[in-house]
C-alpha cells in the first residue's frame, strides 16, 4: 500500500495536518457536562456525572474524589457489528484514558465522591481514544469540575517512512507505527503515551515533537468551543 504521494496522504492531507474537528459542548441534557465531537470519521459523545456519591462504598477515598472512565464502542460503530459490552481493548483504553485525564482534575475538593466520565464511540475511524479524551476533557469543563488544565490528545504515526499526524484507519492498520499522546499543552506535561510499530530514536523524537504541535492545535479548538458556549449563554 502506498501512503504518500507528492507529499500528500491518502486523504490529501499534509503530514502534519489534522483531520477536520468539531466540538459541540453541552450536547446532552441529563449529564452534568457533555461534549460531542466529530474528528474525521469519528463520532463520539462524552458525558460527565459528578462529583457524586460512590457506590459501592468501599471504593470511597477519605481525602479525594475517585475518577472513573468508561470508553465504550456502540455495536454499530465499526464495519463488522461488535458484541456490546467491554472487551480487553476497551478495558485497556479506559485505563490509559483515565490516567490521561486524572492528573489535571483537582480531586481534593471532593472527598468521598466520584467523578464519572463516559465516552461512547458512535462511529469509529482511528484515533478514537484520543478524540474521546479530547471530548471528555471538554465535558469535564462543561460540568464545572475544577481542573488545573485541559488535556488534549492526538495520535502520531509513521507511514512510508514519514512521520505523520492524526492517522486515518488505513494508515493505522497498515502503517509502520502508531503513537497516541495526550498532554496539558500549557505545562507540556505528557499524561498518555503509547506506541507500537517501529520507530528509530530519531523518528521517535520527531513524532513526539509533532504530537506536541497536534495537541496544541486541538487545545485551541477545545478552548474556543468552551468560550463559544459560555459567550452564547451570556448573550441569552
Amino acid at each position, binding site marked *: 500500500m502506498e501512503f504518500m504521494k507528492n507529499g500528500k496522504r491518502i486523504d490529501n492531507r499534509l503530514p502534519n495536518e489534522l483531520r477536520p474537528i468539531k466540538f459541540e459542548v453541552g450536547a*446532552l*441534557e*441529563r*449529564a452534568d457536562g*457533555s461534549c460531542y465531537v466529530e474528528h474525521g*470519521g469519528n*463520532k463520539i*459523545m*462524552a*458525558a460527565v*456525572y459528578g462529583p*457524586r456519591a460512590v457506590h459501592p462504598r468501599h471504593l470511597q477515598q477519605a481525602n479525594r474524589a475517585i475518577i472513573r472512565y*468508561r470508553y*465504550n464502542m*456502540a*455495536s*454499530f*460503530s*465499526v*464495519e*463488522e*457489528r461488535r458484541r*456490546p*459490552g467491554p472487551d480487553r481493548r476497551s478495558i485497556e483504553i479506559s485505563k490509559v484514558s483515565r490516567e490521561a485525564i486524572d492528573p489535571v482534575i483537582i480531586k481534593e475538593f471532593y472527598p468521598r465522591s466520584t467523578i*464519572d466520565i*463516559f*465516552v*461512547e464511540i*458512535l*462511529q*469509529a475511524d482511528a484515533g478514537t481514544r484520543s478524540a474521546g479524551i479530547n471530548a471528555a476533557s471538554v465535558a469535564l469543563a462543561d460540568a464545572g469540575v475544577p481542573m488545573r488544565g485541559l488535556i488534549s490528545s492526538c495520535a502520531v504515526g509513521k507511514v512510508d517512512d514519514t512521520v505523520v499526524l492524526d492517522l486515518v484507519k488505513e494508515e493505522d492498520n497498515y502503517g509502520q507505527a502508531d503513537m497516541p499522546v495526550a498532554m496539558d499543552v500549557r505545562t507540556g506535561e505528557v499524561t498518555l503515551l503509547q506506541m507500537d510499530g517501529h520507530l528509530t530514536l530519531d523518528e521517535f523524537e520527531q513524532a513526539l515533537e509533532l504530537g506536541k504541535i497536534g495537541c496544541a492545535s486541538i487545545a485551541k479548538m477545545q478552548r474556543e468551543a468552551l468560550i463559544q458556549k459560555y459567550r452564547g449563554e451570556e448573550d441569552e
Partner: protein
Amino acid sequence: MNDVIAEIKRDYIYELAKRSERADGRALDEYRPIQVEVGLIGKAEGSARVKIGNTQVLVGVKVQPGEPFPDAPDTGVIITNVELVPLASPSFEPGPPDENAIELARVVDRGVRESGAIDLSQLTLPDGKVWLIFIDVHVLDHDGNLMDAAALGALAALVNAKKPCERYGYGPDAPLPIKESPVAVTAVDLDGEIMLDPSLDEETIASSKLTVISGLQGALAGMQKSGTGTLSVEEIARIVKLASSKAMQIRDDLFGGSTDG
C-alpha cells in the same frame, strides 16, 4: 432527586393533571417535539437519531449474511438489543442489560416482528444463508418515554437501511423489504387523566405505563403494560383507541403516511 423535592414535584404534577394541564404546557395528548435524522452512522447499513423533547436515542442497523435458525431456513433473522449506557442517565449503570433494557429491546423487537414490518421471507440468499438484521438501540439522553423513541428509531433506521449486497458479492445494494410501519404510543394515567408521551417526571410519578404499537391500518401489533400500578379495563380501552389514532398522526407527520416503497 431528594425526597422533599420529589414530593413537591409529585403534588404539583397531580394538581396540574386535575386541571388537564402538564408542567411543560403540553396538552394531555400532545407529544414533545419529535426529530428524526437518518444516516448519521456511515458504518451502519441504516441509522437514525430520534429526539422526543430531550430524550435522545441513536439506533444503528447492521445487516450481515449469516446462518438462519435451523427450524426456519427460509427466514431472515432480527436481533434487537438496547443499551442503557450510563452516559444517558444518572440511574443507568455499566454492565450487561438489566430487566429494563431487556424489556425495552423485546417490546421493540416484537413490534417490528409481529407487525410484519420486514418481510423476512425476502431475506434469503442464494447460498443458503440469510440476512441477519441487528437493531441496536443506543440510548444517549433519558428524559422519559424511551419506548416510543426506541421504536421510532428502529423503524426509521430500518427504512434507512440497505442490504449491503455488493460488499458480500450478492449484486447491487437494495433497501430492506419494509411492509409495515409500526409506531409505539405510550400513555400514563394520572388520577384518571391519560397523558401521552410522558416526560421523565411524569413517568416516575405514574405507577404504570401502557405502550401500544399499531400499524398502518390502525390495528394493534403489540402492547406492554409496565410498572407496579394498575389500569382498569375502561382506561385500557380508552388508551388503546387514543394510541392507535395518535400513531397514525405521528406516522403521517414523519413519513408522509407511507413507508412502503
